[in-house]
């Protein structure tokens, strides 16, 4: 049986806008992935727990609140504590200046607001299937 990519799409932090993350979740679904959607205002603990229980292949985060540094740090720390080794991509409103720091922290990919679904889907597949360079 062909492997289905399982993606957890999480929305940590206090902002309540989930239009963007829902649209991305749908695009990933339409690309044949199984998307576990958890709703808004998730705590880092909830998100990490979901990744663990769902045996996700990749975690997608959408953060618009500006708190991406702190939230990513917290999530990555929790994942390390629980020995979860799952790649992360990030979308939302992320200043370009922050990207190098985020990648150093362990975020595999950051998608800016203008990124096409095609690009997101392609990168997610690359990262999960291990064809990424």
């Amino acid at each position, binding site marked *: *049986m062909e*492997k*289905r990519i*399982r993606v957890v799409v999480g929305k940590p932090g206090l902002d309540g806008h989930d239009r963007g993350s829902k649209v991305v*979740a*749908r695009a*990933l*679904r*339409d*690309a*044949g*992935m*199984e*998307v*576990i*959607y*958890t*709703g808004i205002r998730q705590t880092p*603990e*909830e998100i990490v*727990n*979901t990744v*663990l*229980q*769902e*045996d996700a292949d990749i975690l997608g985060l959408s953060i618009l609140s500006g708190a991406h540094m702190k939230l990513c740090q917290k999530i990555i720390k929790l994942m390390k504590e*629980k*020995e*979860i080794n799952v790649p992360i991509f990030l979308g939302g409103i992320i200043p370009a200046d922050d990207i190098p720091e985020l990648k150093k922290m362990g975020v595999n990919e950051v998608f800016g607001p203008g990124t096409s679904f095609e690009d997101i889907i392609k990168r997610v597949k690359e990262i999960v299937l291990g064809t990424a360079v």
Partner: protein
Amino acid sequence: MSWEQQYNLISDDFFKGRIYALAKMITLVENNPDSAWKIIETLKKNTLRDAPTVGFTGSPGAGKSTLVSAYVSMMAAKNQKIGVIAVDPSSPFTMGAFLGDRIRMRDISESENVYIRSVASRGSVGGLCDAIYDIVDVMKAFGFDKIIIETVGAGQSEIEIVYVADTVLLVMSPDSGDEIQMFKAGIMEIADGYVVNKIDLPQANAFSVKLRNTLALENDVKSKRKVFEVSASKNIGVEELEKWIDEFYSDMSSSGEIFKRHERRLKRRVRSNLMRVMDDIISSQEVGKNSLREFKSLIVKKYIQEEACDD
């Protein structure tokens, strides 16, 4: 990596109760339908109890996820370990799926006593997925006290749950067009109990009365079935439901009904398994110049060959 290798990597941690190993074991049976029974057989040797399995079915929006959450949080508070399987549909075209039941299960998603797994139907039409029997067995082997299943909720033909679960509850709500369904056959026939959810809504009582009146006119079995009035989101009536589910299970155990249900499940499971293998063989064979009869014996022969390789 072969399934044996993957199994060996996680089996120790699985029996130590590590959640990551449970999650990976479920993925393993889900992705290897042909070898799953070998995995299950190994796990079964170490399964300590046959945990009761409760199924919740009903139309989308009726409140299944919310009710499962309220019900499970009650048991988790009593330190019972609960495994939840929430099934949502896969697209028949892309095979992708949007699994959103966790949104309504946030009250239990952080509990130490609860494990939730979202599952895509992957082309199965009975309201569950082909791997459901295997996933339930994996959870039983892990040692949960009870296993809860939420079906896709797409309609009348979703009767697979009756084979998979020991007890089936049909969740209805006055605001989701369930009134028409009330008079239809199918899903109404198979439930052990009916839950009228959203009893907090103004039109709920009228709905409930109508349901009770309809059932009263039915045959003995159906008219004796319980109707529960609950509000999953306001936590009304859930405790009574919880109590009844346990009582119903022990009644089934003492009357022997549970064994009938186990046998029914086993037959169905074997059937599903055979059908899947048969389907694969049939679609991969060329008819060529074979007559109908020749083609049929060719398929049967292939099937027997395949079974022989498998043993």
